[in-house]
């Protein structure tokens, strides 16, 4: 039985520059993985690992340079407007910066009504929007409907964006570091909200993060990426408890964890982030 989502040997190379000064940057190299329906997978990587690019390819915002992405065994096509709409109904993305992802001149009500109208919601759009706002914990919903993005707090904005993603009634949500710009105590609320919604609507979840602990919190399986490639995949407790790849071990040692028994900080690690690619 084929998995719900199958990513097969996907790569993405960005070319920049003109004529003789072209440079190529391989953001994602030959990545493959599968996701079952209702499963939560965390993709962990530091900046430059390619995780965000991979996330955008899964959701269709970027075209892979090579490789295939398949849903229920069928390759995902996004060529016509109808195909794009259908694909959007399957996978929705929650972005890292909710403020950026919101049109500053649109009220919350419009933001949520848009996907409803787009996907042909047949009931009362306003009522449904209010319902969705309540579902993500923004009550009283009537107060929020007329607010502009700049009138909301970071956590509230992210909840609005989650409501917007839910409006489409997707089968999966790809969350690209949605809490990294929020305070931790607000972030944990958002994480719990996503976990609850996942259970309630039987959604699949792809959780993109640089933080191993949050990956453990959110997911059943984990995939560690470095420099565009996958270094280790597996059950989250397995990978964290018995890491095999040296990079995973390094990540684990470097991640602060107050509950771990440790007398003194470890010696400085030899690896430093690589210098940025020469221009």
């Amino acid at each position, binding site marked *: 039985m084929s998995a719900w989502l199958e990513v097969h040997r996907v790569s993405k190379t960005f070319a920049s520059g003109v004529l003789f000064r072209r440079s190529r940057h391989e953001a994602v190299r030959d990545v493959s993985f599968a996701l079952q329906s209702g499963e939560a997978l965390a993709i962990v990587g530091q900046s430059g690992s390619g995780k965000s690019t991979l996330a955008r390819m899964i*959701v269709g915002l970027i075209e892979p340079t090579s490789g295939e992405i398949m849903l229920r065994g069928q390759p995902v096509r996004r060529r016509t407007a109808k195909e*794009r709409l259908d694909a959007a*109904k399957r996978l929705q993305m929650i972005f890292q910066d909710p*403020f950026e992802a919101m*049109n*500053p*001149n649109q009220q919350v009500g419009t933001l949520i009504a*848009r*996907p409803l109208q*787009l996907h042909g919601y047949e009931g009362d759009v306003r009522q449904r929007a209010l319902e969705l706002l309540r579902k993500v914990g923004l009550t009283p919903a009537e107060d929020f409907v007329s607010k502009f993005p700049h009138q909301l707090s970071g956590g509230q904005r992210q909840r609005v964006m989650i409501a917007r993603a839910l409006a489409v009634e997707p089968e999966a949500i790809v969350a690209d570091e949605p809490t990294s710009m929020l305070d931790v105590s607000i972030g944990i609320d958002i994480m719990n909200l996503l976990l609850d919604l996942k259970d309630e609507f039987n959604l699949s979840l792809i959780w993109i993060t640089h933080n191993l602990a949050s990956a453990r919190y959110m997911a059943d399986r984990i995939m560690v990426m470095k420099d565009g490639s996958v270094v280790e995949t597996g059950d989250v407790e397995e990978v964290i408890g018995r890491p095999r790849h040296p990079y995973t071990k390094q990540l684990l040692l470097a991640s602060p964890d107050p509950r771990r028994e440790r007398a003194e900080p470890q010696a400085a690690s030899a690896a430093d982030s690589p210098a940025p690619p020469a221009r």
Partner: protein
Amino acid sequence: MKKWNAKLAAGLAIIAVMAFVALFGPYAAPYKMNDIRFEPWLHPSFRHLLGTDSYGQDVFSQLIYGTRTSFLVGLLAGLMTTVIGVAVGLTAGFYRGWASDGLMFIVDLLLILPLLALMIIMAAFLPQMGVANIILVIGLLSWLHMARSIRSQTLSERQRGYVEAAKGIGMSNLSIMVKEILPNLFPIILANLVSVTTQAVLAEAGLSFLGIGDPKSVSWGTILSLAFTNNAIMFDAWWWIIPPGIAMALFCFGFILLGNGVLEQYRFKRGASRQFT
């Protein structure tokens, strides 16, 4: 809560008065348009508020009739220019690649040529010069700057996260352009609209002045044109030369005030929405 601001009020007042004159003036003008039974070169008096011209027409009446034409040309040409400019700019800014770059290259090329000269050439090809054709000539050629400006802003908006998010929910490119980006371009469209409308009025005056305008209609430009060709300067007939100029300046000034006033209101209502961009 500032629901009204000085610029908006002043601008609206000026333009409203002019619009009123444009609409109803011809019915209320003291004398008919082509009434030439008066003595020429009369100084302003109670009977002729702005004196008479060399043909014996009442200048004041001419000015009133002219308001309708100039106003119409200015607004319609301005509107046409805006529609074309926005359409081209938005599309060129949204779609990247050789089509967009190519289009902009042509625009840049055309921008080098002097606008008035282009209009003269285009006018030369038209069978006759009615008011409609003048509007067409001005409207079809003035959009170049505006397209560049709109494209610029569109390029910048296009990078914003909300465009990506809109794609994410499955919106088509056209929808994104029109429903997401276009509303955010309001300030720059408005600024350009004011600019091209005032430009249109002046272009009409220019064309008429050069004798390419419609000889049968009366506009501020034609008045000015006739004044010069009939040596009004030599005759010290300031009442013939200055009023049309003032009318044009007043229109432009009023329109600019109106535009700025609307912009202020828009910004005020939006509050700090763009503060942290």
